[in-house]
């Protein structure tokens, strides 16, 4: 099959105040006509730089040193700006990661889409018809009226569908999707994957998908390119890559994906070390500093691409070169899990945290406005009758789609959001209704970790002052601060010379370690962690989760982990609570919930995770539709609008919490087990 896009020996540098960064080095790969090609890599791998190089939209400080990008018989790197404008949008179009920021907020979809068609000499009416047809094709209901709406009136999933419609409007020869599902929930992700597959078959489009998500790549792609630190390290068919990975990095990356390990283990594999500094060209193999099978040749010479099998699968590793390393076979470079630490002896006493019927309401409009509009109840319920309990040394995973109220529940327990009804007891003491000064002493014993590793650290404070701050706030000045600060550094394995740095000088993983250390500074008993691994690469995510597990075993901490990432939650949780529209629909021990989900929503979530295995592609989308609005709760069982088992009873009668035989609590009329 002819290659539509053929990139040869691409070298791209960035000028920075510290000198040149060699962001891409000798990158070569082909995108064949009519295929879906996936580019996989962690942050800093250069996968986005490839996109911006092909479209020639690189930042001003970038220099294309050498290379070719042959596209349909032309070298994209030699085209003039005016020629490029005809290529962009017309022949190559892009679906962006975050549809909220990549769509114009002040133009309706109709305006945006007819504007894209400006090159076509058709009438305004024809353009509108074409736009409506494309919106219908990507699964937007009632496109004639919705096309008049603005991006903020669409939900996240719908917005991404519209983004795909806009990208396909000009019938491009090559569609580039940059992390198309990263901003979406698992259920939406599955729908988008399905949509891209359908469209590819229908339009016979050539698609390049760039992502860090192995599940997405396995499910969607025909061929895979693995990038690491600005180089292509492995390249081949999707089955070859996922079943016969030959580069140690690829193997390690696959092993690190928590979705791959089906059995629950406390410790996740990681890739120790950091991506090398690209200011200097690496002398030998770029992965040598993190590879477990490194030998002499790796430091001296750059490995050339070695064929792994006959069908074009190649990997850049000396181990595959029989002349250099006879009898060797690459293995995964991921550190295998250490021995499990002694399980913390759980005291089966009263619960550390006991939440009963908690209700959090947010005001939607002022009293006066509500009067005028005739709204009797100007509130929405973000959390409704939520009950859960947690013991010391235990981990409870709180899972739900965005908008399910899981973050609000976590914040309400810590008094950062006011709860209107219900109770939350910490070691038997009621927390609800406390004034902020009464709550203050309790904060020593409970801490929160926030979603954004860097963004949750005060940007103008040094790491040292971030570490000493909890002690100052709680008036614990008598201690030797140097000792405390060093203790915290050692606890989270952060080098001590980082203390004088500022948060923006840290990588995501390092900033997350600082966050963990701050949360643990005062030896709390309860940690509420909101998406502790969001924004981290898979290889780093394992490190943070292992660290959290170790510290839990050491200090007997209770964790409430809030996440939408089911595979991760599964590995670390003892108990699970599934949340939908502010209600807990199922809660109980982790393993039975995963093996036999009782609530249809849980079943859909568990089935919605894309597996990093191309042989396990799903033929059906597990859950249709979207989360309803909180202002307009469905009648009866609130899940009935999306439930494939729903009956008339579900539409009318709200189910009560029922206890199943194994101690699980389910809110469903027809639980899928028992």
């Amino acid at each position: 099959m002819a290659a539509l896009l053929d990139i040869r020996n691409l070298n791209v540098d960035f000028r920075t105040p510290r000198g040149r960064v060699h962001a891409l080095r000798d990158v070569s790969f082909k995108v064949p006509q009519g295929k879906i090609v996936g580019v996989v890599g962690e942050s800093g791998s250069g996968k986005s730089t490839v996109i911006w190089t092909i479209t020639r939209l690189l930042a001003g400080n970038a220099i294309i040193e050498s290379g070719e990008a042959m596209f349909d018989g032309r070298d994209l790197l030699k085209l003039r700006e005016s020629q490029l404008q005809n290529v962009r949008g017309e022949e190559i179009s892009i679906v962006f990661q975050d549809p909220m920021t990549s769509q114009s907020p002040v133009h309706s979809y109709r305006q945006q889409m007819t504007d894209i068609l400006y090159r076509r000499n058709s009438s305004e009416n024809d353009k509108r018809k074409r736009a409506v047809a494309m919106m219908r094709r990507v699964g937007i209901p009632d496109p004639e009226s919705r096309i008049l709406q603005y991006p903020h009136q669409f939900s996240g999933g719908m917005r991404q569908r519209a983004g795909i419609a806009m990208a396909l409007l000009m019938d491009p020869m090559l569609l580039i999707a940059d992390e198309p599902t990263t901003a979406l929930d698992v259920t939406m992700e599955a729908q988008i994957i399905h949509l891209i597959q359908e469209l590819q078959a229908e339009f016979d489009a050539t698609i390049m998908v760039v992502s860090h998500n192995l599940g997405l790549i396995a499910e969607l792609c025909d061929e895979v390119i693995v990038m690491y630190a600005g180089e292509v390290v492995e390249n081949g068919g999707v089955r070859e890559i996922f079943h016969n990975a030959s580069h140690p990095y690829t193997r390690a990356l696959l092993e690190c994906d928590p979705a791959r390990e089906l059995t629950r283990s406390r410790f996740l594999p990681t890739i120790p070390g950091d991506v090398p500094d690209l200011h200097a060209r690496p002398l030998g193999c770029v992965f040598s500093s993190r590879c477990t099978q490194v030998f002499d040749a790796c430091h001296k010479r750059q490995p050339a691409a070695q064929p792994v099998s006959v069908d074009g699968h190649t990997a850049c590793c000396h181990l595959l070169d029989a002349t250099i390393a006879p009898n060797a076979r690459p293995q995964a470079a991921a550190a295998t899990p250490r021995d499990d630490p002694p399980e913390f002896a759980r005291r089966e006493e009263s619960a550390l945290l006991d939440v009963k019927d908690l209700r959090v309401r947010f005001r939607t409009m002022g009293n006066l406005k509500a009067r005028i509009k005739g709204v009797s109840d100007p509130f929405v319920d973000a959390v409704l009758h939520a009950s859960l309990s947690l013991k010391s040394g235990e981990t409870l995973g709180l899972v739900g789609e965005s908008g399910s109220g899981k973050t609000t529940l976590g914040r309400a327990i810590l008094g950062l959001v006011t709860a209107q009804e219900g109770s939350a007891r910490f070691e038997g003491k009621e927390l609800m209704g406390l004034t902020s000064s009464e709550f203050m002493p309790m904060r020593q014993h409970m801490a929160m970790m926030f979603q954004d590793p860097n963004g949750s650290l005060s940007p103008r404070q040094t790491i040292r002052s971030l570490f000493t701050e909890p002690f100052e706030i709680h008036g614990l000045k008598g201690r030797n601060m140097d000792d405390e600060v060093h203790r915290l550094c050692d606890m989270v394995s952060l080098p001590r010379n980082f203390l004088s740095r500022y948060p923006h000088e840290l990588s995501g993983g390092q900033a997350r370690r600082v966050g963990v250390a701050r949360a643990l500074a005062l030896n709390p008993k309860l940690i509420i962690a909101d998406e502790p691994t969001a924004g981290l690469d898979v290889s780093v995510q394992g490190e943070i989760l292992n660290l959290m597990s170790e510290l839990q075993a050491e200090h007997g901490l209770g964790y409430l982990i809030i996440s939408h990432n089911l595979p991760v939650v599964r590995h670390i949780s003892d108990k699970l609570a599934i949340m939908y529209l502010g209600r807990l629909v199922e809660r109980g021990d982790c393993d039975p919930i995963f093996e036999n989900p009782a609530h249809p929503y849980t079943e859909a979530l568990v089935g919605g995770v894309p597996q990093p295995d191309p042989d396990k592609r799903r033929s059906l989308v597990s859950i249709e539709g979207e989360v309803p609005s909180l202002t307009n709760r469905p009648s009866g069982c609130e899940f009935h609008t999306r439930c494939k088992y729903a009956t008339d009873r579900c539409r009318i009668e709200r189910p009560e919490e029922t206890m199943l035989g194994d101690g699980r609590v389910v809110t469903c009329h027809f639980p899928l087990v028992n």
Partner: protein
Amino acid sequence: MSVTPSDPAPGPLNPAAAAAEPAYSERREKLLLFLQNRLGLFGLILVVMFFLSAIFAPIFATHDPFQMDIPNRMSGPTAEHWAGTDQLGRDTYSRVLYGGRVALQVAAIGVSVSLAVGLLLGMVAGYGPRWLDNLLLLVFDTIRSFPTIVLALAAVALLGPSLNLVLAVVIVTTIPGYARLARTSTLALKHTEFILAERSLGASPARILLRHVLPNVIGPLLILAAMDVPVVVTIEAGLSFLGLGVLPPTASWGTILNEGYLIIRDTPWPVIAGGVPLVLTTIGFTFLGEALRDVFDPKLRKGH
């Protein structure tokens, strides 16, 4: 804020990361960026000259600013009087130097007090309860709706002209600008995760405002302050020119211009000598302020 001596020993468990000690700092990068901005550098030189001439006026001055030399009144530049003399034979050069002290006094006190008060009120408005925000905004907008000169005229009519009155008018009228800017920045920070993280640790609102909000909002305010200095100096000169500010015989650039204006047919030198430093100071602070804004606001940086 505590300064930590950096530990020379590399971290125990992460040697690869420890080795990547930053070879440059962001501060150095900003300094370099600033030095590349020629207009900014020119502005900085003018501003330094303004400060030095005002602070060391008694040393640089050749005459007592009040000493009269009647035989040589209204003369042009001579070896004795470098910038000529006025209608009473006072040395214009020396008077301009002393006039700079008045300008510096008004600028330094006026700008720093209104910066401090505006910053505090703005942060409180942005972080505090809604009703307080609305109340403060109402006050700011009311003040801003008064033309400065008219407000000054009214105040002078009531209290009589004085330097302190000029200062008070300057402070009151410039506070809303700082407060508005501080409030907007604080509102943007209010719901960020790091502020939430501080709240979850139990930090008091005062601590959050002073340690975590202030360092993040002060940058743009300092730039505004640098650009406000010439405005304040001009207000003082303008009010003094109208006879509403500093009173003769005290030398201020405004009074020098006022008196020079009356004798401009006899000698243009007092007007020139009083006007040039005013222009240079205005240019200097404006260039400096713009250069600072370019350095600290990455969005305005060229080449990105």
